[in-house]
């Protein structure tokens, strides 16, 4: 059975989420093709062609696909769907946006955010914010799947597949991209960072996030936040880690002034190592933290900054 993976990228760089989705797709057993839909995205296609396990890269290079707007991208995927038994996308905001359109038009159920390929038709996925894991078996026919990328290792860049151009599909003419406001940061992205330092309501203000940014810069970490901190207006929503934000699984997650609500834990509990700093020793975050420090963050974080400087970070 052949699989088609839809690439996540920004027209310049192929996102790590693609390599992880490829690795999920290879577990289905058949050949894996990658579709790169974008505009001026030839370099992305070249990068996708290097992913281990990829047999062919399809490149649909047209202005229509520059921002991966759901309606035209879904039409493009549907125009290619006949050749594939499975269609997979990373569970990014793009994948979540266009892929259910594809499933509905194919009249098949979508299996969202798989954590594990148990067998080519059986998958594990989280429900209730990850408080339960459902094992589901797909019916015969095409499978449409989004992949929780933190659950899969990235395919390595050891391959050399061919890149083939494919024609753009007709524009359904329903919607158009107007503009975007992207957070500018020199720091790594939350979903691919090896270290994340996140602040919660305990940070008390948006300005105080500078304390975390200093640590982040020393450790080459991304800065995240709990929903409480976002709701309080300290930081924008794209910082949010949790059931309703991003799901992350870095090597190290440092939770600062975060109590550890279920919805936050849902977004970070698969991190390899969790460290927590909170002045409330009863905070639920300590029940999942490998290392807990009961302390006032406004003393502990500046101290951490000094100590890291001493250690040469």
């Amino acid at each position, binding site marked *: 059975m052949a699989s088609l993976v839809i690439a996540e990228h920004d027209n310049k760089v192929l996102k790590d989420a693609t390599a992880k989705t490829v690795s999920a797709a290879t577990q289905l057993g058949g050949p894996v093709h990658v579709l790169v839909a974008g505009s001026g995205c030839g370099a992305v296609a070249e990068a996708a062609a290097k992913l281990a396990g990829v047999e062919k890269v399809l490149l649909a290079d047209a202005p229509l696909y520059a921002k991966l707007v759901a309606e035209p991208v879904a039409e493009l995927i549907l125009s290619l769907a006949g050749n594939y038994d499975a269609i997979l996308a990373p569970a990014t905001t793009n994948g979540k946006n266009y892929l259910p359109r594809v499933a509905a038009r194919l009249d098949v159920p979508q299996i969202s955010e798989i954590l594990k390929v148990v067998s080519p038709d059986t998958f594990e996925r989280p429900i209730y914010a990850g408080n*339960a894991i459902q094992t589901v078996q797909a019916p015969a026919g095409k499978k449409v799947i989004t992949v929780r990328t933190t659950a899969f290792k990235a395919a390595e860049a050891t391959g050399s597949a061919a890149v083939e151009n494919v024609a753009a599909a007709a524009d359904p003419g329903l919607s158009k991209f107007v503009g975007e406001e992207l957070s500018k940061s020199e720091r790594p992205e939350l979903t691919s960072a090896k270290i994340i330092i996140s602040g919660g309501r305990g940070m008390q203000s948006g300005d105080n996030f500078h304390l975390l940014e200093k640590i982040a810069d020393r450790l080459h970490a991304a800065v995240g936040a709990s929903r409480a901190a976002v709701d309080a207006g300290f930081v924008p929503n794209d910082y949010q880690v949790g059931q309703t934000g991003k799901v992350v699984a870095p090597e190290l997650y440092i939770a600062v002034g975060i109590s550890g609500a279920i919805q936050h834990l849902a977004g970070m509990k698969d991190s390899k190592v969790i460290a927590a700093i909170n002045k409330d020793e009863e905070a639920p975050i300590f029940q999942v933290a490998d290392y807990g420090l009961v302390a006032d963050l406004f003393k502990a974080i500046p101290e951490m900054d000094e100590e890291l400087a001493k250690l040469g970070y």
Partner: protein
Amino acid sequence: MKVLVPVKRVIDYNVKVRVKADQTGVDLANVKMSMNPFDEISVEEAVKLKEKGKATEVVAISVGPQQASETIRTALAMGADRGILVKTDGDVEPLAVAKIFKAICEAEQPGLVILGKQAIDDDSNQTGQMLAALLGWPQGTFAHKLELADGSANIEREIDGGLQTVEVKLPAIMTTDLRLNTPRYASLPNIMKAKKKPIDEKTPADYGVDTAPRLKVLKVTEPPKRQAGVKVKTVSELLDKLKNEAGVI
């Protein structure tokens, strides 16, 4: 313009979910049920449109058991005008729900359907997009801000890197994200008034939709548990552990 607002009855978001010992699902017996939090945001947005004179009628619809009429009642108390309950037993997958909504849209001819981006029980995040595809309508998912114009809408969306605005032709589907608005609490007089608002009762058969699940749930299990680790006393001890014991910095 008529606005349709689907609402789902789900386990209350404050309830700690327990997996049943026989692995058939989660325990819903004697558990508090509420409206899906994202759907409250949808209702709020629809009611605000009506208050601004941009919507003429707000219809709350739900697919679920008889008790889902209480969820519709909540929407009516928040300001929706009438309800439609499509009665079902057992779980209905997003695709079947979207097919029922499609039939309702064809009958009701709304200008906008506002859905929650996901239900906090199955976390599928599919129904709105599927409904849009089945109707051949555009979608603005994970909405942060809505601006209606003549025959179109600008929807600002929450995306991984920040915010994106798309222009969609009406009729359209919008799915709500958390920062679109803060849902109101229903006042007592409005709760009383809601009791008199009509709720139509239908079945999936009325819309010719087969709700038999396509996916087979083999089991539902507890996620692997994380053990609490150790408490450290100082920042330098913490850094020492992270560097020399865990090797992550």
